[in-house]
């Protein structure tokens, strides 16, 4: 079913007193998700954002608690703040990335309220990809440029209008009755074409988890990381990477405990107070990155923690390519004990 962009924009703008609108906008260095005042400010033609929209739920830097000390006493305050949000224009890879993060921030024992309060107060409007980058490989990760998984409402851009599909009750409740109209035959053909599109780049992850079960001590890891700078860009730009640090920001008697993105590629990440470091080499850290995404995460959560968005490939300063590394795992010879 179809709705004109104008009418859709009016519907979204009409909600602006209750919801802030976060959407792709052009800025120096690329497209990113930012708060916009009106739907007319939203960038409509974009490949994907430079950074995934995970920061909306898991900011790069956030205050968890704050406190004021008074002599020997202290007053502690919870700093969790939530705004109702419409997150517009999320690509299929990133929408799936949010579903994977959902599994991280809630486990068998704990639920992270900072992440979940924001997540529960956000409606995700997904958008199919009309342009596919050479680094995209979502089709290999069980997705496609038009998969609606993880979106509450899913759109396909038809020029002046959208093909609109309500995916969840949350999506249905947001926009109410929109007065959708039927697609023309020409529009239906366009929708069909977008829905049948696949990424040109493909990798085989069909047996990677089982293979990695047997690869912890494999020599494959020895040379893999040689050119890695340990800059963390791959992790920061990854829609599923979620590691963080908690530290203190203090000014005289008051302070806050803050959470910032961290990454398994950094040596300090696992350094003990004693000086011992269980992952003291970049080799061990790359192995952890691959094992976590393609093995540990699968065993713990039932999914591979990679969505094929290709950001790590596009942003790596030394051209490390996840697809080649996956391929290398597939081709690695198993060491017989």
């Amino acid at each position, binding site marked *: 079913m179809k709705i004109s962009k104008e009418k859709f924009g009016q519907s979204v703008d009409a909600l602006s007193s209750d919801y802030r609108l976060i959407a792709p906008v052009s800025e120096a260095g690329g497209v990113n998700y930012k708060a916009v005042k009106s739907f007319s400010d939203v960038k409509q033609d974009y490949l994907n954002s430079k950074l995934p929209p995970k920061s909306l739920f898991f900011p790069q830097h956030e205050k*968890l*608690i704050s*406190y004021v*000390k008074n002599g*020997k*006493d*202290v007053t*502690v305050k*919870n700093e*969790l703040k939530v705004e109702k949000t419409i997150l517009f224009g999320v690509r299929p890879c990133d929408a799936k990335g949010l579903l994977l993060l959902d599994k*991280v*921030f809630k*486990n*068998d*024992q*704990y*639920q*992270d*309220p*900072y992440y979940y*309060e924001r997540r529960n107060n956000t409606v995700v409007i997904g958008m199919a990809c009309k342009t596919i980058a050479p680094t995209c490989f979502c089709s290999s990760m069980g997705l496609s440029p038009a998969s609606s998984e993880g979106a509450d409402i899913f759109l396909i851009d038809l020029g002046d209008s959208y093909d609109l599909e309500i995916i969840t009750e949350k999506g249905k409740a947001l926009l109410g009755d929109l007065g959708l109209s039927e697609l023309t035959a020409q529009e239906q053909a366009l929708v069909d074409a977008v829905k049948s599109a696949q990424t040109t780049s493909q990798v085989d992850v069909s047996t990677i988890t089982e293979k990695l079960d047997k690869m*912890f001590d494999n020599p494959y890891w020895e040379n893999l990381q040689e050119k890695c700078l340990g800059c963390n860009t791959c992790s920061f730009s990854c829609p599923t990477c*979620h*590691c*963080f*640090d*908690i*530290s*203190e920001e*203090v000014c005289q*008697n008051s*302070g806050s*405990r803050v959470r910032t993105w*961290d990454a*398994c590629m950094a040596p300090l*990440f*696992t*350094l*003990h*107070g*004693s000086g*011992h470091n*269980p*992952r003291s080499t970049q080799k*061990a850290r790359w192995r*952890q990155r691959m*094992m*976590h995404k393609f*093995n*540990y995460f699968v*065993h*713990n959560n039932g999914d591979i923690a990679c969505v094929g968005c290709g950001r790590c490939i596009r942003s790596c300063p030394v051209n490390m390519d996840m697809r080649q590394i996956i391929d290398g795992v597939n081709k690695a010879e198993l060491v017989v004990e």
Partner: protein
Amino acid sequence: MEQNPYLPITMKLTKNLVETEDRNINTFTLEFLNKQDEENFKYMPGQFAELSAFGYGEAPFGIATSPTEPGILKFSVAKVGCVSNALHLMEEGTMVGVRGPMGNYYPVEEFKGKNLVIIGGGFAFTTLRALAVYMLDPAHRGDYGDITVIYGARNPGLLLYKEELAAWENNPNINLVTTIDRPAEGWTKHVGFIPSITEQVAPSSVNTYAVVCGPPAMIKFTLPVLEKLNFPPERIYTSLEMRMKCGLGICGRCNIGTEYVCKDGPVFSMAQLKDLPSEY
């Protein structure tokens, strides 16, 4: 909203005791400020908590008290980094933050009806002390067979909980063996490293569990001794340390393979560890 696991409760530091002669380890006694906080903090021996020194940061430490000691928590902490130094210097009466209890605990249910040998070295004795105190409690002592504690330190001054050790010496409910690395003036107990002392004094492995905690070198050389004494890996438990931040299995740094030491540990059997990568 559910309880926020990042929000610490405040507890009062009522005693800041220098525990060892080298002044490197202090034992902090923290008092719950109200009944509600105490009721919410239901813990078992082997669990840990994140302590906040407000203005400095937060770090994880094993709980040295047993739940059979109401009203307080104790932590014995070595001076290592920013947070532990701040705690060492803290004046009694100061409020500290506590998040927890976290992690799993020694399988005291599984131990029921069995003998236990607790083997500890250096300042890793904290949660082992909690375990021993828990089992020695009159409400629990009948559940267990013989309890043997083998505890060593480099020299007598570095042993933790000296008064308590002295009391255990005369307690028929527990068999305490203490040892130091090299002879020292006035020391009349065992002299020698934990692995060789264990070999000499360990009880029969029949119907017995072993709990081992200490520096990596001690563990490395004690495990083969236990194997030689026919302790199967399923009946040897240890508690691991890792750099931690959240303590909730989310921040990503303390995993060994699929297991997060903060949430799935810190207590593991040797049988479990054999199935995990040797990355700890």
